[in-house]
């Protein structure tokens, strides 16, 4: 089950938090730059204001002399809304009118202030009679605006941080939720329930696609497991039968046999039965070995034409003895990269199957052709065929058609043939020969190298 610890450890949360942090840093930087720009603009505006005011007062003096100037100043002192301050200093250096605190600024614009932010903006003008008029703005308005803007940005920053944190938690929780579905299914499979599948959302997003891929993987594993279980059961069953027969035979012998002849016959039977069991074992081992092989170091160029001639030649006589006809249509110089022994066994198995599962009077055909980049090899007969629904099944180990169950054979011949075909990059397919069965194998063609042609 999911815990807070899981949430805190989640990569999704870490990514989201990192993203939030980056976002907040950028918001902070933008805010700081904005405050700087706004303050600068306002300060410049205020400076222009005091300059204009000083010029207006100088105009006032030039127009109406000292009296008009003083009247104008007195009028301005009366305005309670303005933060502008004034001082008029006589030629002798005494304050005639206004704010005496501004006196130091007439000599040094920086005045006695401890820091830059405390310096008021000033504009001083010398008048015709030697007195000085000074206009100052203590920047209260600018500082107010600066504070407001700063506060606004800090609020935005806090909001962004909270929003980011919330989103991060939500996002990682959602991610965990999606992954939990996958984890739960995987845990169930680990615990042994191979039927579990990851629930799909159908959104086709990356999680949905991952789920689809994992489900396909589980299907494949499940199929292999079923196959393995089936094979184990089949092996157990198919070996039990001859083993039980062997045991019964030996038991009966120990009760009934009296003469050396009896014993000899019994031992011969036992050896035959043991051979059958060993045959099943070696066929199974061979199939398993072939299926597990990817290494093809033993592969050499093999003339499939020659091999087909040998097989046709070997089976023509047994076929005619059993009342069947073997015909062959073999193209010359068909070469494949192969293990000769395995290929021989493949086609011998196919021919033997055809001869064994067709009624007397049937014709079995061996066909070899080269078309495009492929060698087409096939064994067909005009017998009873295999129903379409059974064609895949007869390739399974031990699978036998109902009608041939009583005959000889262990149900491994076609499995072996299919495994050999696959090892050689070919595929064994069963089709309807109308009438009868056609088993075909397609190989990629190999050009013989060097003396391969002559040999």
């Amino acid at each position, binding site marked *: 089950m999911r815990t807070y610890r899981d949430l805190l450890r989640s990569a999704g949360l870490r990514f989201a938090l990192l993203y939030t942090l980056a976002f907040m840093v950028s918001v902070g930087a933008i805010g700081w730059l904005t405050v700087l720009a706004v303050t600068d603009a306002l300060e410049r505006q205020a400076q222009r204001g005091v300059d204009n005011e000083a010029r207006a007062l100088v105009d006032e003096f030039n127009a109406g002399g000292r009296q008009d100037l003083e009247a104008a100043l007195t009028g301005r002192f009366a305005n309670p809304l303005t933060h502008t301050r004034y001082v008029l200093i006589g030629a002798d250096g005494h304050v005639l009118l206004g704010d005496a605190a501004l006196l130091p600024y007439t000599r040094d614009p920086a005045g006695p202030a401890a820091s830059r932010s405390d310096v008021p903006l000033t504009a001083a003008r010398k008048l015709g009679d030697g007195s000085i008029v000074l206009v100052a703005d203590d920047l209260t308005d600018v500082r107010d605006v600066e504070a407001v803007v700063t506060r606004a940005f800090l609020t935005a920053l806090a909001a962004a941080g909270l929003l980011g944190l919330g989103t991060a938690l939500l996002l990682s929780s959602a991610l965990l939720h999606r992954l939990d579905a996958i984890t739960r299914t995987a845990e169930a499979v680990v615990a042994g329930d191979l039927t579990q599948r990851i629930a799909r959302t159908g959104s086709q997003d990356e999680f949905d696609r991952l789920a689809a891929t994992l489900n396909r993987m589980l299907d494949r594993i499940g199929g292999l497991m079923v196959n393995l279980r089936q094979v184990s059961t089949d092996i157990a069953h198919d070996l039990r039968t001859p083993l039980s027969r062997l045991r019964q035979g030996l038991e009966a012998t120990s009760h009934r046999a009296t003469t050396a002849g009896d014993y000899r016959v019994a031992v*011969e039977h036992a050896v035959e039965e043991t051979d059958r069991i060993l045959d099943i074992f070696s066929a199974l081992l061979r199939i398993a*070995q072939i299926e597990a*092989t990817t290494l093809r170091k*033993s592969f050499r160029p093999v003339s499939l034409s020659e091999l087909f001639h*040998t097989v046709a030649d*070997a*089976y023509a006589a047994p076929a005619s003895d059993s009342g069947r006809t073997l015909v062959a249509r073999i193209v010359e110089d068909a070469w494949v990269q192969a293990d000769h022994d*395995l290929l021989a066994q493949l086609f*011998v198995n196919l021919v*033997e199957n055809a001869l064994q599962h067709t009624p007397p009077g049937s014709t079995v055909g061996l066909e070899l052709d080269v078309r495009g980049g492929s060698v087409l090899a096939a064994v067909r007969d005009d017998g009873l065929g295999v129903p379409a629904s059974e064609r895949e099944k007869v390739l399974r180990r031990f699978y036998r058609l109902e009608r041939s169950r009583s005959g000889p054979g262990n149900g491994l011949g076609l499995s072996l043939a299919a495994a050999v075909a696959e090892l050689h990059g070919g595929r064994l397919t069963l089709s309807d020969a109308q009438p009868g069965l056609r088993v075909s194998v397609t190989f990629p063609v190999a050009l013989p190298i060097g003396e391969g042609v002559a040999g």
Partner: protein
Amino acid sequence: MKILAVEDDAPTLALLVSSLEEAGHVVEQAGDGQTGLRLARETAHDVAVVDRMLPGLDGLELVRQLRALGVQTPVLFLTTMGGISDRVDGLEAGGDDYLVKPFALAELLARINALARRPPLGRVETIIRVANVELDLVTRRVTRAGHVVDLQPREFSLLEFLMRNVGQLVTRRQLLESVWDFHFDPRTNIVETHMSRLRAKLNSDGGPDPIETVRGSGYILHADIS
């Protein structure tokens, strides 16, 4: 014949040795590859029977080293599993024949005989004679008591193998391998079918059958029948 048996499984080795001795051979035995290699170098043997899987020095390596030292003793490999490339690997390492366990005793003895009878390198025969049967390897013509016997190519090969191993048991498996190059057991009795045709043609003039069938094992071509 003097035979060297190299096999690590003690019960199998004991059975192998007693069977070979019973068949009249003199047997030297080794339970591992190193001992086997030493024995093979020290004394000459007619045939060496070597298990493929041995602890320490394995069968393949043993034979490879033996051949590198110039020892030409014919080697018969034994193996528990007829693997995909096992036969080819065995032959490439310098082995001469290959037998998959479990095998019938008659099979082992027949193969040892065949190996020991291999003509030395360089000696080329063109005509083989057994009793009144004559086989010409160049013209591929067979006569019995001077009369031409018309044989199919595989029947010719069957007869050739029997004549080369005259008086010895030749197994079905040996014939499958040498005549058809089939290194597995088909279900169909290919050998029997072709053998009966060969015999019918060979004995068509009413002469006695020189080929004896050994039930469950194979055939023997006898020289003393004419």
